[in-house]
């Protein structure tokens, strides 16, 4: 765990250049290898809690985080307004958004410690992802 904490000291400041710079990650034991954008949409909008018959739980960054904005752009397209969507879901169905964290480090830690979580981080963190033994999911070209 000490090594893990040390990793955080050297986490680079993520600089997003395009939506392709995002890594979709899950725990190493997950049978999933690839996900589609549609599956991610359904998961992060809480319309499902399974992907390819595997039980999964989304974890995401806060709405003002640049990587969250790039992820939303990648998965939902423009002009999706996540804040408005969840405000309305709260009124209509009492649904709360997926758990949000403030920093990619928390995504890494939570995904490492909890089987079935799916999150995302910047590709600059590939080294930490490998060090923690997490699995990077391929984004299916269609859907």
């Amino acid at each position, binding site marked *: 765990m000490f090594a893990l*904490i040390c990793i*955080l000291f050297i986490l680079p400041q993520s600089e997003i250049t395009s939506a392709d710079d995002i890594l979709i990650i899950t725990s190493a034991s997950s049978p999933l290898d690839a996900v589609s954008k549609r599956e991610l949409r359904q998961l992060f909008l809480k*319309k499902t*809690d399974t992907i390819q018959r595997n039980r999964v739980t989304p974890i995401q960054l806060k709405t003002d985080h640049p990587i969250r904005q790039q992820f939303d752009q990648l998965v939902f*397209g423009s*002009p999706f307004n996540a804040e*408005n969507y969840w405000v309305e879901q709260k009124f209509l169905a009492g649904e709360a958004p997926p758990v949000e964290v403030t920093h990619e480090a*928390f995504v890494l*830690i939570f995904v490492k410690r909890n089987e079935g979580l799916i999150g995302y981080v910047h590709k600059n963190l590939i080294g930490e992802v490998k060090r923690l033994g997490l699995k990077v999911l391929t984004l299916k070209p269609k859907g």
Partner: protein
Amino acid sequence: MRNLFSLWPIILALTITAQETPTTTWQEQSQPDRLQFGGWMDLLYSNTDHGADDSYFDLPHIYAYADAHFSDRWRGFMEMRRVNAPGSKEDTGFERLYLEYRHGIPLKIRVGRFNTPAGLWQHMHWAYTIDSTEKPLIEQKHFFPTESDGIQIFGTLVNGMSEVEYSVFGTYQGENNTFNSSNEMGYGFDLNVNLWERSKTGLFFQNFQFEGQKLDPNPGTRQTILAYNETQLIPMKLLWRTEYLYLDRDEADSLSGYYSKLRYNFNARWFLNYRYDDTDIPEPNQQIRKQHANTLTLGFHATSFLRLRAEVSQSKTELETETTTSSIWIGYRF
């Protein structure tokens, strides 16, 4: 060095996380607030072309809710309302009051008072969440009970390209401040399929007992059928929606009506909405008249707490002159 200082909260959190026992679960670490409070209120200025006496400037709605998560599966929800909108009686009471059991996204059960799961507009009928200030005529006329006291079983099933939302409900009583249904059993369902995340098509059916009211003094068994479709003509940009309602009134002539609308999103904050309404209106003398309306709305979501709308609506009933209503609406969420 500044970066190191900025990481202190994270290091602290991780140290605490690391010291937790291995039995600490994701649910324990990520549990949202067990008890949440919230609500919204709005301010409306509206004016019809009948003269200055018809203008309205007030707070038409105040809604407040308490949402209690007793566990991962059990939840209680209470919502109170105070309504003083133009064209409706002043009303204070429970909008929703239910206990919910969540087996998972595909299966949830509610017991208590819930909104009748009827189509698209009714599902999001709060002034804060809809995209026009004037309601569709088929909703204004209260052809069926919009609140139900009973049990609702509902959920969402996802299978590849399609999403299916279903709801089955049984009611002991369904009523609101403008509707009278008797204290007898009613039942119904709502089923819709969303294909390719582009087009949602559904059907709502409800059977209930009606006691009669001023404009529609025909008691008896009634059946409501609502067919609806919502299609993203241009994904996230241009939406088309239609809901068609048919009401079987037992001994009296049946009623029908529909609305159709287009909504264009300029961006995540601005939108333009146009709706055409056409419906039958019952009268105490058993006659049925036609009413239609055109409504144009410009909407702006200023922040996640503040929404604004400017609207013009023209409505015409058979044998009557046209009425134009202009309005400015501001909604605030708290």
